């Protein structure tokens, strides 16, 4: 059974990534499609990374956009003058991840001494500190004027492709790490941390270490995504690079698809990002699209309150349990009927 499930998982992953790999090759010059997919995949990668902390560890960080901005500014600062052939910024991404992860460690060490709502408040404070720094640290960030990344010297007809595949690679990395977490002692440790840290200590889980690993890895991937985003859009402004809406996007998509699941954040992103694009296109600049966007979220959460994937699997489990229950009730009834005469013989009335 386990082997079958693993095989289904592999087939699902190969089909998903296979389709995404060939989309640009098939659709060719349709720039808007690859553009829309870049942002969808970007949010899928962000939500999958956020899920490592917010889902598996149960720490709802609202400060992740700070690390998105950190990655974006790293790219703009280093490649402000030239991108040296165009591919060097992609090659440098692991360094961005390591740098962001190292910076996140002391922040996580302090913030993760708190839990739940307090943790959320502490991390959103980190976000606003980062935004304030971006606005005011003029010599490095360019302040409110922003900072540009040198344009990429890619062929116009396939300009989007390197960014598209870079984002897709980051999504694969985020999901690969998610999968590794789920199947390793790290995932088991995080599950116990999410359930109860005292109990986790009691069975020998290295609680602080495992929380920090999840936080640092998550922030590292988010910073890489921020780096690719900055390179793609070409200009980094504080209000867009360190934007609370980016954090909210990650959180909403993860909750919508299913917190603590492998595919939930991806599903959430593939529903919400296109929905947002579609509504923005339909309702124009009236901001009315935000109502429609919120409506999608509310309707899904109303009918599938634990997120799409967990709610569906809950219902399936209940159905199976109910079916088993009917069988069990039937057998209980049969034994009760057969026991009845014996009870009468002893004069006991139940």
């Amino acid at each position, binding site marked *: 059974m386990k082997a079958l499930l693993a095989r289904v998982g592999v087939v699902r992953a190969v089909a998903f990534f296979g389709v995404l790999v060939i989309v640009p090759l098939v659709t060719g010059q349709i720039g808007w499609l690859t553009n829309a997919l870049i942002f969808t995949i970007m949010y899928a990668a962000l939500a999958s990374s956020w899920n490592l902390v917010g889902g598996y560890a149960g720490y709802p960080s609202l400060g992740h956009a700070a690390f998105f901005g950190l990655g974006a500014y790293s790219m703009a600062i280093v490649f402000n003058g030239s991108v040296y052939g165009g591919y060097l910024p992609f090659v440098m991404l692991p360094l961005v991840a390591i740098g962001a992860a190292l910076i996140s460690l002391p922040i996580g060490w302090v913030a993760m001494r708190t839990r739940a709502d307090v943790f959320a408040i502490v991390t959103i404070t980190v976000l606003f500190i980062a935004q304030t720094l971006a606005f005011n640290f003029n010599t490095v960030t360019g302040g409110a004027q922003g900072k540009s990344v040198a344009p990429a010297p890619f062929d116009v007809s396939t300009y989007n492709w390197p960014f598209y595949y870079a984002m897709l690679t980051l999504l694969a990395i985020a999901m690969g790490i998610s999968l590794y977490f789920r199947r390793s002692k790290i995932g088991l440790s995080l*599950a*116990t941390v999410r*359930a109860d840290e005292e109990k986790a200590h009691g069975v*020998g889980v290295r609680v602080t270490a495992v929380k920090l690993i999840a936080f640092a890895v998550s922030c590292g991937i988010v910073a890489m995504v921020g780096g690719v985003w900055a390179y793609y859009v070409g200009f980094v402004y504080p209000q867009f690079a360190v934007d609370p809406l980016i954090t909210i996007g990650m959180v909403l998509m993860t909750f919508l698809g299913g917190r603590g699941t492998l595919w939930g954040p991806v599903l959430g992103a593939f529903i919400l990002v296109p929905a947002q694009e579609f509504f923005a296109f339909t309702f124009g600049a009236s901001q009315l699209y935000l109502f429609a966007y919120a409506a999608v979220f509310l309707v899904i959460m109303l009918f599938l309150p634990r997120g799409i994937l967990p709610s569906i699997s809950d219902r399936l489990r209940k159905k199976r349990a109910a079916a088993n229950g009917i069988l069990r009730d039937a057998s209980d009834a049969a034994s009760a009927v057969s026991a009845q005469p014996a009870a009468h013989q002893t004069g006991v009335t139940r």
Partner: protein
Amino acid sequence: MAANTDAEILLTLTDVTAGYGAGLILKGVDLSVNRGESVCLIGPNGAGKSTVLKTISGLLRPKSGTVVFAGTDISAMTSRQRLGRGIVHVPQDRSLFPGMTVWENVMMGGFILSDPNLVRRRMEEVADAFPIVAKRRSSAAGSLSGGEQKQVELARSLMLDPALILLDEPSIGLDPKSRTSVFASIAGLAKTGRSVLLVEQNARSGLAVAHRAAVLEAGVVALTGSGESLLNDPEVARLYLGAGASAHAPRS
């Protein structure tokens, strides 16, 4: 049960003080447990019984004094290091992870083991000793009754093949039938040659399964003796076993 007089000492607490924040709960506890011995710690609420167990398992560090286990001072060790040395703590509150299955919960008992074959072997041994583990292996631990959960907790405590098991009020909140079966399991643990340090409000049942007992009052050990002798001590009986309650009952 007879006291184990000539046995080798496994655990010694010497003049241990400990507490939360600035306040001291333990004010100089001296206590020892021999190898293969069951010791029951009784005392009024707030005397520091659970704190003694936490200080031994490392969930709380002593402020002064020493905790020596198998000849090594473990006072400064983390709870994980102490687990590795064979000290397992089954806390008073339900310590299972309710969302995980019974099987996963028992497996978590061997979390610090790195050899998967050893974990598998221990799982089989534990399932043999505690049939509930095999019977309800796929059930969410949170769906079990209080008595069943306690049995699974006891089963989990064996995953590390511990030398010392610390049991904090295992019968709390259980119905009489579950209580009887939990104490039967505790007596079974003691027979396997492991040491058991048991904290129990249900003093009569606790003392009955113990070789030796200690009475903790206001953070110090006030009285020690065999389980049997404390059961027969009129002062202990009056204070902790409910004897004489009728003499003080108001007349109707």
